[in-house]
């Protein structure tokens, strides 16, 4: 079967959904962050794939670059926050940090 755009899209879709699944189910905050990275990667695949197959020029790639940069920044910030949570709560289990609620 010839690899077409759809294949790439399927890969990205699965990656995206796995990412969300990870975010929702993992207890550990760092693992949740990993899930977010998966989502961003999935979108990136989309951008690059679209720009490749749709002949949209290199804009897609550029966007992917931006997103990578942003992902890095976000990861840094998020990790700093996780560390801070660890300092105050002594664990980073997302589901246990629920003192703010109704």
């Amino acid at each position, binding site marked *: 079967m010839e690899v077409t755009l759809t294949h790439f899209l399927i890969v990205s879709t699965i990656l995206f959904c796995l990412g969300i699944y990870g975010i*929702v189910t993992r207890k550990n905050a760092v693992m949740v962050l990993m899930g977010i990275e998966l989502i961003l990667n999935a979108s990136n695949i989309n951008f690059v794939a679209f720009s490749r197959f749709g002949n949209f020029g290199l804009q897609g790639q550029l966007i992917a670059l931006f997103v990578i940069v942003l992902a890095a920044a976000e990861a840094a910030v998020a990790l700093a926050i996780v560390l801070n949570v660890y300092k105050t709560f002594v664990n980073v289990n997302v589901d246990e940090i629920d003192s703010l609620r*109704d």
Partner: protein
Amino acid sequence: MNESLLINFAVVILFLPLLGFIVTLLLGKKVSKIFIFENLVMLIGLILSIVLLIAKVTTFNNVSISSEFMWIDMGDVPVIGQIQIFLGLLLDDISALMIFVVFLISFLVHFFSIDYMKGDIRYNRYFAYLGLFTFSMAGIVLTHNLLMMYIFWELVGVSSYLLIGFWFEKKSASDAGKKAFIVNRIGDLGFLLGLLTLFLTYNTFSFVEIFTEISQGNLPLNSEFGLTITGIFIFCGAVGKSAQFPLHVWLPDAMEGPTPVSALIHAATMVAAGVYLVVRIFGILTADAMLIIATIGALSALIPATIALTQNDIKRVLAYSTVSQLGYMIMALGVGAYKFAFFHLITHAFFKACMFLGSGSVIHAMHHEQDIQNMGGLRKKMPITYATFLISAIAISGIPLTSGFLSKDGILAGTYAFGTLTGHWYFPFIGFLVAMMTAFYMFRLIILTFHGEPRNKEKYEHAHESSFIMVMPLVVLSILSFFIWYTPNPMDPEAGWMYSDWIKNPELHTPENLRFGFMQSDVTSVITPPGEHRIMYSETYTAALHHVHGSAVFLSIAMAVLGILLAFVMYQWKKISADILADKLKPLYKFSYNKWYFDELYHKIFVAGTIGLSRLIAWFDLKVIDGIVDGSAAVTKAFSKSIGWFDDNVIDGLVNLTASVSAFIGLIFSKFQTGKVQTYIIMVIFSLVILLFLFKSF
């Protein structure tokens, strides 16, 4: 003396008592002798009313004088046009006569009270109230329109409320005042409705204008039924004020008031207002309405009379007697014996006031003892009181030579004639029966009070004849109970000036087809001067009246004598033991003694019913209405944050449904807020799915 002066006299007469009231009320605290002013005012009023009466019956005989001013101007009302409400006075024969009666008795009662009320803590207040009452009564008498009649009607109710409940520290007194006012109001509702009906049709309250319209054929609500019902409605007012069945219950209770008040209000004037009202509207009554009026009157004559037979309270006996006599008058009006009814109103006023004042004198002497079983033998101690009381009793029993005979006999003859003409025989039957009962219980009263041996020695010892101030009115009133004031012929009132000249048949405005056959307008008649459309009784009626007159006289005297004899037999000579008789007829006796259980019945049905309903409504208000609202506004309760909130309020289900729903919404919304961020994300995913599903079709 001209007409405008006369009407000015009327105005002065009307407002004098008001002046007395205001001055006495305001200065009552400061000036202890201010009651003298009130008495003086009444005296002036009396003199003026005498002047007025004389002027009226001499110079201005047959002339109606009225004067009015615009009270309210509604402006140019759409559709109807100008609506203006006038107030004013009307001075005709009956009002002139009536105002004199009112002022005479009022003055005498004022005078009597000077001694009777001595030592009361609210002495001056009492006179002020008497003044207010007299003012109101004068208003009723002198008014030329129905609205003003209604206004003073209510004012009379209030002053009577104040006077009955004068000794308000006694619960029974304040109860009685309240009862009187409320029972009166029931009748007033009818009056009000009649008023409304008439105004609706004619946009005026004035008697004259309304009568004119009706005689031109414009009937209220444009139907014959409307005219009948209007008459009955207005009559309702009379039922209340004149204590007619079924609203008679207030009058006996009203005896809680000071006795002079009973004399003034509950014997002579206020209760007579009802009769006066019917007299005023007599011209527009239809045959149907009259029949109802007669029936009510008959019942009111009969029932209280039976009750009076067994009562032991001196004032209550008089009270029931009053109701009974008023029933007579009403019945008389109902059967068309207009003149006799009004005549009886006047004669009754005198002798009944005399009896009340006499009983006051007795009560005063006995230190507020009212039970006749504790009296007896007072004849010796209080000769003048006894004499006057006796004269009045004879008068009320209808023994010849008294005024009572003249008027009562006329009424009986009227019912008799009515019976012969229309076949309604129960009116004369009741009339004669009641005549006998009246004589019986009156003499029972006299015998038990004045004759025989004193049954309460101690009180008897202290009893003494009253002072001049109290005796004088008795004497005056008893003198007025003789025939001579009314007619030269003691057997025939028609021979007298009062009956023939002063009281005249009214104009009749009811359409021909709605009248009794024997009552006709004399438009075609040549006997009366032209322009006066007074009632002309048909030949048959006159004939019937003449026909029955002899037998009526005989019967009525026989009945009276029979009653008196019976009283003597039972109580004086004790041939028949009253106790044994009572025992034998126990059910009847009890029925009568307990006043036919009217009070109990009314209390059960109306008072308890109303209060029960009101409790129900209050409950409903508190629980249901409030509940529903609390619920739907919801929030009010939402702050009771407990979840077991539902249980607390299950009592009223209706409430909770709405309440819980809206409080629940909030609760559910906040339940979503678990504090777990991953749950949030799952929920977002789900809601995105749902949203996509909802909008996929687009």
